[in-house]
């Protein structure tokens, strides 16, 4: 095919990276002063399409540099090197209530990045791009091993960093959505931690009905890490999000077996029956079900189920007895869980008990409940399956896209520094390299 037009070139560097790494997107060989749209597209495992785009004008050399130039429209604006990822939303016409979560961590998220002529807002599928590039974003670094865990009645997946170790360990607990969610553990292993993603919400069937796991389940998981030949038995952290925080805090204070070296709580609360099992916790929450509210779009707001923060000490974990450093990551627009109020109450309890020097709180305005790894698209509301009732609802998580995305980046950085300080003993001596 003959052509006299110079072909534009779009370059993504690095073209393969870990999901928490930044990339550079550069468009070259455009005519100077040309209005273009840089567009990113993901075809999810659930067969949905997610997209983001920015409006740019090429400079006098015919280049657009997403890391340095300002987007003047689209799904993000301003100078946003990673806006093409964190501002992604399902394309128009998609099923409602979607959430982008990678199930298969052996394969990367594949992002198609294209440049179109003009400032477009829709119909990208029907328009021919000027140029394309493909970027891969991985949860697993090369050499990380994935091991299925089915012994001792446990259900989980263990991720091991490359090398002989031994390494610090981490017990990774997601929230009430349940299931076996692996991607954060894969990512943590890519940072040097033996990380166990644990499925604990799937009710056990015990012949006469469904039943939740007991506290011994979590103790068995902790012991598995402790006894693993590649884990430093006295350097194991717990990381919990949402409901997983309640579990982590409860275990850390009351379990004779579980002694974490440090604890990270994301969007969590300490409000739960003291030394209660999971079943007790759910029973208590159900009592407050009348506190459920709905927003103007009929999406469920569950934050009041734990409010007001009780004064009764039997209804909340006695964090005054915690003996390890705790990092609380809290979204101030969390519509699902009263994380801010809980954090404040925890701080007061710990001050009274004299162990507040162990506590660090990072509180993020405009940020919702789902504080995910960096550059994950912000989800303000999504479908949610209530495990027990087997009903599907739309839950409001909260947050506004820009502040929530910035929070995810900062929260992850804080998490990694916190884990490294306490598990690797880096003691703030030297900053982590950032790309």
């Amino acid at each position, binding site marked *: 095919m003959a*052509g006299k037009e110079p072909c534009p070139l779009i370059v993504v560097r690095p073209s393969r990276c870990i999901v928490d790494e930044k990339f550079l997107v550069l468009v070259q060989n455009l005519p100077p002063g040309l209005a273009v749209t840089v567009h990113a597209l993901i075809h999810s495992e659930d067969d949905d399409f997610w997209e983001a785009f920015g409006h740019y004008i090429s400079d006098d050399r015919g280049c657009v540099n997403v890391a340095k130039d300002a987007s003047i429209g689209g799904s993000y604006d301003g100078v946003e090197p990673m806006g093409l990822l964190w501002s992604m939303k399902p394309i128009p016409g998609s099923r409602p209530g979607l959430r982008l979560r990678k199930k298969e961590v052996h394969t990367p998220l594949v992002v198609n990045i294209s440049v179109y002529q003009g400032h477009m807002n829709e119909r990208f599928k029907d328009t021919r791009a*000027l140029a394309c590039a493909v970027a891969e974003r991985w949860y697993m670094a090369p050499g990380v091993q994935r091991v299925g865990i089915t012994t001792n009645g446990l259900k989980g997946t263990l991720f091991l960093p490359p090398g002989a170790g031994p390494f610090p360990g981490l017990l990774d607990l997601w929230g009430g959505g349940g299931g076996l969610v692996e991607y954060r553990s894969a990512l943590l292993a890519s940072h040097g931690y033996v990380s166990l993603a644990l499925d604990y919400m799937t009710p056990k069937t015990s012949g006469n009905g469904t039943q939740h796991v007991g506290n011994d389940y979590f103790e068995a998981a902790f012991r598995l890490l402790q006894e693993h030949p590649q884990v430093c038995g006295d350097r194991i952290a717990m990381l919990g999000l949402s409901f997983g925080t309640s579990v982590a805090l409860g275990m850390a204070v009351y379990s004779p077996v579980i002694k974490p070296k440090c604890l990270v709580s994301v969007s969590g609360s300490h409000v739960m029956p003291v030394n209660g099992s999971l079943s007790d916790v759910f029973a208590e929450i159900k009592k407050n079900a009348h506190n459920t509210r709905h927003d103007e779009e009929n999406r469920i707001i569950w934050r009041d189920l734990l409010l007001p923060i009780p004064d009764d000490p039997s209804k909340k974990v006695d964090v005054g007895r915690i003996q390890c450093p705790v990092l609380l990551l809290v979204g101030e627009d969390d519509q699902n869980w009263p994380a801010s109020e809980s954090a404040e109450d925890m701080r007061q309890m710990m001050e009274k008990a004299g162990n507040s020097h162990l506590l660090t709180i990072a509180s993020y305005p405009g940020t919702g409940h789902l504080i995910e790894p960096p550059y994950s698209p912000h989800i303000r509301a999504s479908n949610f399956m209530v495990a027990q009732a087997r009903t599907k609802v739309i839950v409001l998580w909260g947050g506004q896209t820009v502040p929530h995305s910035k929070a995810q980046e900062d929260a992850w950085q804080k998490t990694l520094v916190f884990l490294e300080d306490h598990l690797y003993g880096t003691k703030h001596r030297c900053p982590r390299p950032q790309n």
Partner: protein
Amino acid sequence: MIFRSYCILAQKTARVLVSGRHQLPTCIWLSLRRSASSMAVCPVLSVQPTRALVDEKFQIVVRNLHPKQEVTVHSLHHSEDKDYWEAFGHYTSDENGTVTVMEDASRGGTYTGTEPMGLLWSLRPIPGSRHGLRMRKRNVLSPMVVNISVYKGHMNQGFSEEAALATVVTERWYLAPGVQRVDIREQGVKGTLFIPPGPGPFPAVLDMWGGGGGLVEYRAALLASHGFVALALEYLTPNKKRTLDIETRYFETAYHILQSLPQVSSDRVAVLGLSFGASVTLTLAAYSKTAKPRCCVCISGSHVHPVNKTLFEIFQLMNQSLAKSRIDENNHVIWRDVILPIPTEPDLKVDVGKIKCPLLVVIAQDDQNWATVESTEDMEQIMERSGNRHLLTVLSYPDAGHLIEPPYTPHIRFSNFITHFNGEKVIMLWGGQTKPHADAQEDAWEKILLFLQKHLYQDIPPEAKL
């Protein structure tokens, strides 16, 4: 030295599902397992990015060492030929217990000084390996896997018997995501096509290697990862009978196949050749009536090349000249004198005065295989006389050798070679000293890409001054 290795046994609890691409090697580098109980300090090793194209740099940082601690940063690669290659540098951490390979100087090992990529370009076969090895990736759909480790103290050997303080696995790719690989077997032409992602059309490059023969894909894959449709062409096969047929028409057909692809801008096609492939490139550029490349790149090549002859006839003539080859003190074969002195007869060298497109010539001053320096001087004179000297750019690298490969490829001063002329197996001296050769590879590649982008992507008419 016997290479010892041990297997790590998966312990009682788990059923091991190994990450798809990285099968646990049956033997891995470890003997001693340190106690799993508390250690005072665990070093933290990071390599960014862990997956990269082969021409991209990485940043290696070791943190959380003791201050002023001596360590060795080590790289290990298990090649497709099942050989082990290693490189290492000796470092001392700063007062924060940090080693930053990009900024700190290595004081010993296979490279010294501040060398961000020394762990790749100074890779060499481990002690006890077979002789005359060369590292070349055959399967470009998988990455080159390099283990980066940090060891206590300044070590020079015995890495397989020591437990590393930390290890990271990195992947180095010739192929960017989205690049397609297509076998080409048409009109008698054998090659592999690489197509970048996107609607195109793209500029294209016909990519040719040298007298070693075979179908070598990695450079074409890398060019496609930079936005060019690239055709890696095989024109010398082990099957001698095939060589009888190969003459200029074969290369013109390959060029035409490339040019006619719907993904290719037909007026933006370049030809790139190394060694013998460079001579073919010059022949096409000077004489072909149908192949009119927009620009050409000749790496470690010469215009001294019989004109109007089939490959078979050329090899016969070369065979006669081999009487001028020498052997050095290590029994390595030196071919650089074979084309010297530069002939004056016109039918023995390509008339580069006829070339009408920009030409980039990349040569090494310690090339022991082919007299490229003398050839280039002669080419300059011919082009000066013909009035097309302004089309020529010469990159000449002191102390570099014949095999100017993509950046960070380990330097090979000599290697096993089967001569196509007579099927003899020799050890060929290529030349070059490791550090200057590595610098040359890095600089040359950057300039080759800029040259191709300038002439193929930007709208500059070919006759314009470079």
